[in-house]
């Protein structure tokens, strides 16, 4: 709220207390998970402050399933998807921003369809398509439906549209082809947008679950979210200490990245939301 309104001391105290309370409530489940993961099984349900810390839950979890491979798969997946998205969305956004071509408006509307109807809800048909292409149970199969991101096209189109035409024309005068103009003029100016989109995309695809669950079968293509689910499936005797350890391991990359680069993360998501 505006700094022009200074609340009374009582108001400030109440608000601060309420905010802090909500903050504590909000971080509580995660804190609970951290507690359980770092203490032995016997203390998973008890809060003895002097309980010994241990890393053995993480060791057990790591041993119990091929998490190293799962991490590699997830990493490969988000990298592949982001790289493809950056290229495809840049080209498409450039087309929409700076070129007049037949059916441009209709095409743009069709692109916007994907904002509403995401691949996540088309699992049945996309699964059949992957089967027909013969690439089921592979990392590309997870990533392909997402590589043309309507969200990315939308964001970049917006950004490209705001680039001053003079820069474009100046480069043109020097004899640059359209692609060269794109690479030399537009892309550098859109760097903040790329960063924003990149973080959103990596976040989303690292955390994706249902589609990878359906499309992958073997350890060589399973991302870490599916690995976690397979690992903690309830048929086994559930040991919460090990499961929370595995859960934290799965979330660690994004979580640590977020904690270290909070401002950038927040700015990125903020920028991604500015329409």
């Amino acid at each position, binding site marked *: 709220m505006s700094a022009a309104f200074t609340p009374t001391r009582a108001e400030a105290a109440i608000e601060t207390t309420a905010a802090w309370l909500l903050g504590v409530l909000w971080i509580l489940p995660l804190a609970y998970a951290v507690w359980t993961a770092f203490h032995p099984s016997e203390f998973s349900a008890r809060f003895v402050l002097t309980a010994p810390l241990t890393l053995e839950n993480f060791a057990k979890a790591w041993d119990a399933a091929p998490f190293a491979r799962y991490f590699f798969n997830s990493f490969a997946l988000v990298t592949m998807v982001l790289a493809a998205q950056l290229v495809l969305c840049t080209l*498409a956004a450039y087309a929409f921003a700076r070129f007049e071509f037949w059916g441009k408006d209709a095409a743009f509307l069709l692109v916007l369809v994907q904002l509403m109807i995401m691949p996540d809800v*088309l699992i049945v048909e996309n699964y059949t398509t992957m089967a027909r292409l013969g690439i089921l149970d592979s990392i590309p199969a997870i990533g392909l439906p997402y590589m043309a991101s309507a969200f990315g096209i939308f964001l970049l189109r917006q950004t490209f549209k705001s680039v001053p035409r003079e820069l474009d024309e100046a480069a043109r005068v020097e004899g640059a082809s359209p692609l060269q103009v794109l690479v030399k003029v537009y892309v550098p100016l859109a760097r903040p947008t790329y960063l924003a989109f990149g973080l959103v995309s990596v976040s989303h695809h690292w955390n994706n679950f249902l589609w990878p669950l359906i499309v992958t079968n073997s350890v060589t293509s399973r991302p870490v979210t599916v690995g976690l689910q397979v690992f903690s499936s309830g048929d086994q005797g559930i040991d919460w200490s090990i499961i929370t350890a595995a859960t934290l391991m799965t979330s660690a990359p994004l979580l640590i990245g977020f904690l270290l680069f909070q401002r950038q993360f927040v700015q990125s998501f903020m920028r991604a939301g500015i329409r």
Partner: protein
Amino acid sequence: MKRGSAHVTGWLLLLPAAALLALFTHFPVAATLWHSFFATPKGGRAAPFVGLDNYRVMVADEVFWRSMVNNLWFALGTIPVSIALALIMALWVNGKMRGRTWLRMAFFTPTVLPMIAVANIWMFFYTPQYGLLEKLTSLFGIASHNWLGSESTALICVIVVAIWKEAGFFMIFYLAALQQISPSLGEAAALEGASRGYYFRRIVFPLLMPTTLFVLVNAVINSFRLVDHIVVMTKGGPNNATSLLLFHIYQVGFNFWDSAYAAALSMVLLAILALVAVGQFVFLDKRIHYQ
């Protein structure tokens, strides 16, 4: 540049993205509609045309109706609350409150966690007898309860998990919008003797309408799109009390292998999403203030 080549270049640039979009978005939508009019192929024989049969089965399917009702309650439960919380959080974090960096971290952290990690943590939280929730409620003298295991409370539990995950995400968008509001507006209002409440109600909130719309649409789509936590926590139970539409589609398509019926169910989901899109463009666009 020659006009003709602009068309060609434009389309060439668009082609790769357009091809993938066509293959994985537009084609599946059409294919879903097509397949919903046939029966599922079994063994070697091809799929016979059955017209509206799948839809007739759907109308008689109790689990489908339960899933729809649940999804609506789920949407009604998560959307207003998470948006309201997001707005409040953004207002707090944007102001001069002490410890607001920490608050921002606390509110946003659930967003970077995978939904299934969230679901596992909360399942532990809800465990009867020694889960954290039980410990907290017993402190307040509330009776012990099997939260996820009873039909009356399971859906609410799942709604709480979704709110926890989403509110921080929406907070960020409100934060962005709040920072765009010129401080001179606040100063002018204060000079005119307006109260904080008045300033918020009459000036800030209307200015936030575009963000609210954006967040609203996102929230509606998410309430139909996100079922990871159902898969982990309840598998739709007890007795379908937490079955949502996409989860039912997943069960029918990939547990029962009835792909034709799954296609019919998917059509319902697509129709709902299409309605949301139309609603966004036609109705809500008219009522927003633009600066």
